[in-house]
């Protein structure tokens, strides 16, 4: 029963990782852009929520009403003002520009908020739980995070396969030049993809900030978890990414149960094993 509890908590944590991964996956899927600053953008939105909560006194979850549109707009501007200019010259420019961006965001946050650890206070929600048995209880907060992750992935799937915008995303992903010839404004579509990715990122950032402490330096580790969830699940498959996140969460929580030093290491090792044994991930979308 104790092991079941560990696995359930790990799986719920995996929901958060899937949420981290969804934005990364979307940007890569649409424009083959791997955003090294992804983790730092998660942390940036957490600080954004912190400022809003401190200024207005609203509940952290309510602050999403402001944080999500803000990050959406920021994402649109970031893509049109900066990242679009990196997409024509091979793999180095996008990688190194987002790497530079990552260092700028991290040190900017450090300068503005110091290295102190922060947290968003969510009142009773933080400790409320649903008791399912002697040794099994599910916290409401982890459960909500997991449900949000499933809902976001379901909505993204609907958007990709049922709407005109989704059709444009898939078209530029397959062949940007041809899509542009048929009237798709690719710079605008790329910017919308990043905007949407950052909206998901902001959701993930706020939920992370309620769940655990954060400081300016934790971004890169979130990037690695997001990346691992994408690769474990298999490129191009959003539901696979959810499964990848869950597997990563379970590995970390089993590792932590063995020895605290093994928590993060166990996740990385599962990732490396998948890479060795199933390099295309567990649920690859397309055949080669």
């Amino acid at each position, binding site marked *: 029963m104790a092991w079941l509890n560990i696995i359930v908590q790990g799986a719920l944590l995996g929901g958060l990782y899937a949420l981290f991964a969804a934005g990364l996956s979307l940007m890569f899927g649409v424009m083959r852009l*791997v955003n*090294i600053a992804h983790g730092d953008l998660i942390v940036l939105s957490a600080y954004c929520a912190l400022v809003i909560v401190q200024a207005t006194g609203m509940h952290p979850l309510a602050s999403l009403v402001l944080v999500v549109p803000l990050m959406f707009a920021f994402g649109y501007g970031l893509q049109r003002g*900066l990242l679009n*200019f*990196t997409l024509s*010259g091979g*793999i*180095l*420019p*996008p*990688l*190194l*520009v987002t*790497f*530079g*961006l*990552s*260092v*700028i965001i*991290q*040190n*900017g946050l*450090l*300068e503005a908020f110091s290295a102190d650890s922060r947290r968003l206070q969510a009142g009773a929600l933080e400790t409320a739980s649903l008791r399912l048995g002697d040794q099994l209880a599910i916290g409401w907060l982890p459960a909500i995070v997991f449900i949000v992750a499933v809902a976001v992935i379901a909505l993204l799937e609907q958007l990709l396969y049922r709407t005109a915008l989704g059709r444009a995303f898939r078209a530029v992903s397959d062949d940007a030049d041809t899509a542009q010839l048929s009237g798709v404004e690719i710079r605008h579509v790329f910017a919308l993809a990043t905007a949407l990715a950052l909206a998901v990122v902001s959701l993930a950032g706020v939920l992370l900030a309620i769940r655990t402490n954060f400081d300016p330096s934790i971004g*890169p*580790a979130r*990037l*690695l978890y997001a*990346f*691992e969830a994408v*690769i474990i699940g298999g490129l191009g498959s959003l539901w696979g990414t959810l499964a990848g996140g869950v597997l990563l969460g379970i590995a970390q929580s089993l590792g932590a149960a063995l020895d605290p*030093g*093994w928590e*993060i*290491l166990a996740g*990385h*090792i599962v*990732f*490396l094993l998948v*890479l*060795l044994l199933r*390099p295309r991930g567990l649920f690859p979308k397309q055949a080669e």
Partner: protein
Amino acid sequence: MLRTGAYRIDRSTRASRVALAVAAVIVAALLSLPLWGDSGDMRLAVEIFYYLALAQAWNLLAGYTGLVSVGQQAYVGLGGYGFFALTVLLGIAPLPAIALAGIAAAVIALPTAFVVFRLRGAYFAIGSWVVGEVFRLLLALVKPLGGGTGMSLPVAVVLSLAPSRAARDVVVYYLGLALGAGAVSLVFLWLRSRQGLALTAIRDSERAAASVGVDNRRTKLAVHIIAAGIAGLVGALAFLEKLRISPDAAFSVGDWTANVIFIVVIGGIGSIEGPILGTIVFFGLRALLVDYGAWYLITLGALAVAVMLLAPQGLWGLLARAFGWQFFPVQRRLRLLDLRQAPPKPSEAPIEAAHRED
């Protein structure tokens, strides 16, 4: 120089011959630094040398073979920990231990290549980063080497290197100089060799290189292993100088990879001169912005972003284009000698044999 009737192939240029003379003067000045500099100068110089070595290695990886590694801290850390393990646990003398630590880092790079080479492009970058994290977390579990808090180098080991602090500074300084100059020379000689031609070909077009018979995978593996060996030597030397090691310091992505990426990108990726210029700019900026804390890194990041967008060949690329400079003669230039067979115009301009694709 090669003469065959109607044309001739030049390797050196006027700039490169001048540069050779200047380089000789600089090396002579550096060799004599312990005579006129204090220990602070020597420490700064050693730091410059190991960043120069790391920058040359990263430039080979990213600039020539497209392996944009964010995981070089793995090998710096392994070199550092290798040095501590060899001297403290096995009682090996410091000097051979440095060499062995470098070799150990290169050997460990072989199995890790087997895993990370499954990832391409940007995914390789993040995958190599994960490998760096794995080694950091693993070393934190090794209790004989201090676990998560790390350990100091025992006094006995320090004394076995040199009896006094002043003598130790001089030994470390010359080791650093050898490492920095050695890394630049190694890259230079490699690029002039047959394999160097393959490297340049891969830099300019992977597909075209493969189509003329270059074994891309083998070349990349060689670069990966050599770069790891250089990083390992840097790690051994850096933590010998610091006298203390911990997983966070040894496997720091900021210290050992981010700074190096900025150096190479700002200086100029895909040339030998770029990382040298980048190292000078990096330490110059650091001296200027020393009192501004995080603003220093923000400035570096912004400068790197601007360079990548506006001048992807870096500051050296701008200079080389403006003045036609090439200090390290690794290209071959074809000059037509027989005027009757020469193209009508512009007959005086040398044709670059190693033409770049950009």
